[in-house]
């Protein structure tokens, strides 16, 4: 309603340890994506703070957060978010180039090899299936060797079988790299593969359960 302030997240206190994997679950509209946006520094909170590696990213301006993201954060999105004008290889190279890292091309093709797309380096997103596009996205996320990986409903646009393969790949790479993983999902079976699971309801943190 116009003129009324809408409080989306209420009094959330959440600590995630380095190397931990955490699932954030909740129904549609519970505030999962908003929380993810704040944690990853994509959005600005009206109150409160987000501290990553002793850096209070809520104190940083938009460009400061962007630089921080390029050094520490990776993403996997529900809708893949590949640039349609770039080939698979170029999409994976992009964050490496933005972070100014050397050997972008070699690293990118190495990661595409690891997600099973070594033969499709020069294909465009349009020429790939949904599962293949998400593999490219996963390769892009890990290629920059981020400290924290945020995954937003990574299987939301995929069928069950493909979704399972993608999740396997995601967790396998995460294990190899020792990356902190924050995963937003409404799929409880996916949430259970994380070490911790927090549940959001109407913007409030309900419960926290340790998973296997």
């Amino acid at each position, binding site marked *: 309603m116009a003129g009324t302030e809408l409080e989306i997240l209420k009094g959330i206190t959440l600590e995630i340890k380095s190397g931990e994997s955490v699932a954030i679950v909740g129904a549609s509209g519970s505030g999962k*994506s908003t929380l*993810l*946006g704040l944690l*990853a520094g*994509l*959005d600005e909170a009206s109150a409160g703070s987000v501290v990553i590696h002793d850096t209070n990213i809520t104190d940083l301006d*938009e*460009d400061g957060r*962007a*630089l*921080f*993201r*390029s*050094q520490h*954060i990776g*993403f996997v*999105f529900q809708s893949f*978010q*590949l*640039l*349609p*004008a*770039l080939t698979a290889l*170029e999409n994976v190279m*992009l*964050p490496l*180039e*933005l*972070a*100014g890292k050397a050997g972008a091309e070699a690293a990118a093709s190495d990661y595409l090899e690891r997600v099973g797309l070594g033969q499709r380096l020069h294909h*465009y997103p349009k020429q790939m299936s949904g599962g293949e596009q998400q593999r490219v996205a996963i390769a*892009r996320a890990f290629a*920059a060797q981020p400290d924290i990986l945020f995954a*937003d409903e990574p299987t939301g646009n995929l069928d069950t079988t493909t979704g399972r393969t993608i999740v396997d790949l995601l967790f396998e790479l995460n294990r190899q790299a020792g990356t902190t993983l924050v995963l937003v999902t409404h799929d409880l079976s996916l949430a259970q593969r994380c070490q911790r699971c927090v549940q959001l309801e109407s913007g409030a943190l309900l419960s926290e359960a340790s998973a296997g």
Partner: protein
Amino acid sequence: MITATKMLARDWRGGELGILIMALVLAVGVVSGISAFTARLQSALEQESHRFLGADLVVRWSRALPGQWLDAAAQRQLNRAQVLTFPTMVIADAGGMSLASVKAVSTGYPLRGELTYSQEPFGEALTAQSGPAVGEVWLDSRLFPLLDVSIGDAVTIGEARFTVTAAARTEPDQASSFMGYGPRLLMNFADIAATGVVQPGSRVEYRQLYAGDATALTAFNSWLQPQLIEGQSILTIDEGQPGIGEALSRAESFLLLAGSLAVVLAGVAVALAARRFSERHTDYVAIMKSLGATSAAISRLYGGSLLLLGLIATAGGCFLGWLIQAAFFAVFADQLPVQPGPAGLRPYAVGAVTSLVCLLCFAWPPLRRLSRCSPLRVLRRDTPEETTRTLIDTLIGFAAVTLLMLWYSQDAVLTLAVLSGLLLTGALGMVIAVALLRTGRAVGMSAGSIWRLALAGLQRRGTANALQVVIFGMAIMLLLMLVLVRTSLISQWQMQLPVDAPNHFMINIAPEDAAAVEQTLRDNALPSEPLFPMIRGRVMSINGVALPTTDDPAQDRRQREWNFTWSDELPTENTVSAGQWWEAGSAAAEVSLEEEYAQRLGVDVGDQLGLLIGSEPLEVTVTSIRQLQWQSLRPNFYLIFPPKVLEPYPATFMTSFHLDKSNKVFLNELIRSFPTLTVIEMDIVIEQIRSIVSQVSAAVELVLVVILAAGALVLVAGVRASVDSRMYESAILRALGAPRRLILGSLLIEFATLGLFAGLLATMAAELSVFVLQTQAMEMAYVPTPWVWPLGIAAGMLIIGGLGVFSCREVVSAPPVEVLREL
């Protein structure tokens, strides 16, 4: 780091750059094409106009001009010729004699244009390579009966005898060199000395003619200027033939107007394409930002891309411009009787600057906003895009258009007229769009589904539609303005030269012959003007102060001889601009002056003029100032008096009449019956004016085609901006079972309705602009044009309806599944 080159290369492969680069290339192409085309046409017309001087540069004096000027011109590789004109008596062996206006020409004359002759009097005109050889003369056809000679006979001028070898027909510069009124006799410049008739103090005019390379000519001109002494003057086309100078400058105004309209259209097309490019790139920027790109990096990236794009587009655009003008000249070569001149590099420099301005002022503002887009879009697509046009952006665009138009036309009034038309269209467009939004909902609910869909479409894209009404309105307005201005230009020219316009002057009609001459004209059914009396008189003083005495023809304020006439009625095509015309039968000592002559003399209503007619002084008061049409080819007079004032003085009469080309032999009979009268053939000059007018009309039509193409480009770019959302809506509708027919029908109604509003707006704005243009810039009378209203509205509906549906036909052709999956 990702570079601009890489991004451009990738975007190019991905097909994203196509629209923007095409718009830019077309913008530069249209601008440099029109510019090159008009430049070449202008230089051609200028060359054509030089035909009326017989050269590129002419110096004249009443005494022999320095010979070293010819040597200096020779050193600069210029072609040269000399001309001397003077009146003298020609005597035939059989005893016939007549006053003739002799023109002695050197070898090489004319340097520009054609000299024609015929092998018998009034015979078929042939082009001559040069004038008469030494010892030969060519006589005006009228002289043959007057002298009673034939080809091969001998005539005497002063102390020398010559053989008549041809009939002189036309000289390119005859319009600019009336000297005395005797019929023409052409002879060789080398024969002058032998005749012994040219003595110091003789009434003669010497001319030196130069032609050649433009650069050498300019250098020669600036070398020559400071050496001119009083009385020596350089002839320009305006002095040579005022009617043609005016026609050319009007044509130039028109072509410049067309050029600046192309700039406006190009700017709008670039802005639309850049906006669409930026909208389509918003998501990419969000992804790049989420991956860590800073705003500065994004700005650098897109700024660099734009610069690179500008370079490519400028190169491509200049090439396209060259092709456009070459194609025009190729297609219309037959219609252009003149050879197009060189265009030079300027049109391409103009294209490059235009490209730079378009990029900075139209393309950069929407792209600059990209760097401010939120990375949150990767999570939530509904994050508001920052695409609202800020006031500053609009002001930047407007300032750019204004400056470009000023730069092009170098004419503040012209720019003001066009811009005020554009502003009015814009303001009205916004008002109408708001009204549309308010009423659309109510109308849509009560209409059938196809109409409901169409009106809902109009209402939904409210702001976009307001913008499109404005843009479409502008494009149609520009087209209408061109049609209106062009039509009025041509019709005014034709009105000035009706088919039966007088094309011959008859002077020196003796009073006792006046009635018989009028009867002869009537008997031969020749349309003629009334007979005007002509009395030679001198203007000596103003308000008792004597005018300077000098023979300098450039000096108007001097004691000199004029033709006076009398009339009780204001002659046709004269209007009184100050004072009052006298009552019929007035015997007061008053005079009516032509406006420009009065200005040059510095005389106003109420001033006293001291005159001398024969040896009798006469004091008159100026009681009225008249404006008149010099191009009308009717007898025109600087000074007109009441009949009772001049009647006591001896007068001859003059008139003008129309004679068909096929009827020329009539002149033989006329001159035999009235040997004292002189006929001046103006039909040749009229033919020359007609040829210029027809070339200019052809040019105007060509420019119209170019503007039409630019207008269509803007329309398509405007429609393309909404294709994405239309695709999505159509896919949903078709998924729900709507037939293609329904969607196509609603699209047609939507665009035709837009066209209706745009056409209405455009017509109003065009009418206003044309009013300002005609009354302020082109010095014509404003004529309302009711026929343009239905035309403008119908054109709006047809063009926008057709082009709109055509430009988004993929909306119904792409499979819905594919569209929905892509989103």
